């Protein structure tokens, strides 16, 4: 078992305590709801898109430290990106938290703090929920996302 601090990095704990871009987004163009029935995590991701670029993004809901911090750091990482960038980042992030053989991915920037999740398979769903929900919003999929 790897060190707990590898999972609960200071950045993650900080974003759990004070999530960024947290709350409703007035005048959102796209939004989606995500749900992790296993642990009761629920969140909504709302996005404003301007000429194919994410001009604003916010999330609200409740969840564990990993899911809350993941949503918070995701909103920071996504602002200003194109919708195509969002899909690419999703794939990179997914690899980061699931593939134990993946080499370090510099393109992920701060999101690399979630690398520790790969050693806790039961927590992958927590880390990825916000991203699945974001993808559903971007794809304008109105069916609630479930990790089950």
């Amino acid at each position, binding site marked *: 078992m790897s060190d707990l601090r590898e999972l609960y990095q200071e950045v993650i704990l900080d974003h759990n305590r004070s999530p960024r871009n947290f709350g409703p987004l007035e005048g959102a163009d796209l939004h989606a709801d995500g749900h992790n029935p296993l*642990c*009761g995590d629920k969140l909504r991701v709302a996005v404003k898109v301007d000429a194919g670029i994410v001009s604003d993004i916010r999330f609200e809901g409740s969840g564990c*430290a990993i899911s809350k911090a993941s949503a918070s750091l995701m909103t920071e990482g996504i602002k200003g990106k194109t919708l195509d960038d969002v899909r690419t980042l999703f794939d990179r992030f997914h690899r980061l938290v699931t593939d134990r053989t993946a080499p370090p991915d510099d393109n992920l920037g701060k999101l690399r703090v979630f690398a520790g999740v790969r050693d806790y398979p039961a927590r992958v769903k927590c880390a990825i929920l916000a991203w699945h929900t974001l993808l559903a919003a971007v794809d304008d999929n109105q069916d609630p996302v479930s990790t089950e």
Partner: protein
Amino acid sequence: MTTTSVAHTDPTVTDRTFDIGRIRELFPILAQRVGDKPLAYLDNAATTQKPRPVLEALSRYYASENANIHRGVYALSQRATDAYEGARGKVARFLNAAEPAEIIFTRNATEGINLVAQTFGRQQVGDGDEVVISTMEHHSNIVPWQMLCEEKGARLRVVPITDSGELMLDELASLLGPRTKLLSIVHMSNSLGTINPVRRVVELAHAQGVPVLVDGSQAAYHMPVDVQALGCDFYVVTGHKLYGPTGIGALYGRRELLDAMPPYQGGGDMISSVTFERTTYNEVPHKFEAGTPHIAGAIGLGAAVDFIAGVGFDAITAHERPLLQYATAALETVPGLRLIGTASDKASILSFVLDGVHPHDIGTIVDTEGVAIRTGHHCTQPVMERFGVPATARASLAMYNTTTEIDQLVAALTKVREVFG
């Protein structure tokens, strides 16, 4: 409290006292370590570990008794049949059913409930009728009735619970009426630990002519169950929570009701004769056991209830009750911890939340200290809603748990605080 001296009749423990060390030795899985920490298994409400007599019964069956049952004319098949039917007898004695035929083997408690919903329920419940359950039911005692009510145009009524997690008996009584076709209620809550006054509940229901199903999944490994004394009409248990194998459970039903119920699934063994024009059904319990059953599982369950009876509920209660008190007091010393489920009559379940920390994070962190607890909604989402929490952390005890393991949990919770500040 490492040793509690209580007389019992377990042939596997020769000094005739409840010696926790000897009990633990019977469960080989408990000796393992998680990383460099000893395993403290505190998720017994999800499933219990298996003692050697159960493991040996399974292995002996496959090594020396395996054959299909009820059909073969050869000696081996007869031995397998005897072992399977013998297990039915053991479960009947364990629950004090009037006769073995009142015990139907199922996959688990869930299947037992679904069986009643799909046979008795579909026969008895009609448009405008009502089925009554309670707020503290496991999803397995909610969804089968919702499905039935939806199909039949019937209504599901729910008995509320108090802030401490106790059933509101007055409300229960007022929900019962001429339209009520069944009351289905849990004996002991898996997320709160509450023990319901089932005997009183049955009296109230029977006074209105309402039959009662009791979900004994949690109760049956903590306290003696006497279905005749309780007076209930159906009682379901699951083997894997009785220190037995997964994939096997039992439904008790009063003979008179079982005889009148239509079959559950169609297939072999549940028939007397089959032609393309007409099939006549076998008698109970076989009418409800289509196809080759989980023979090994039933035999393992028989060994499990023998094991429990051998240790004895007097000894089990004398060990588990003070352990629950010790654990409750220990958890109450943890800053920011709140217990969910504080009924005056409860057993072996400690559901809690910790200020500022999601239960899922608690579960991951205590796991690194070797402590296995459950986190989430425990398949009781309406209970979570009732108490206004998304989830809880839950430690649940069995006969082999110790105060040392409780201390290990409390120390691990200190580590949670260290991480989260």
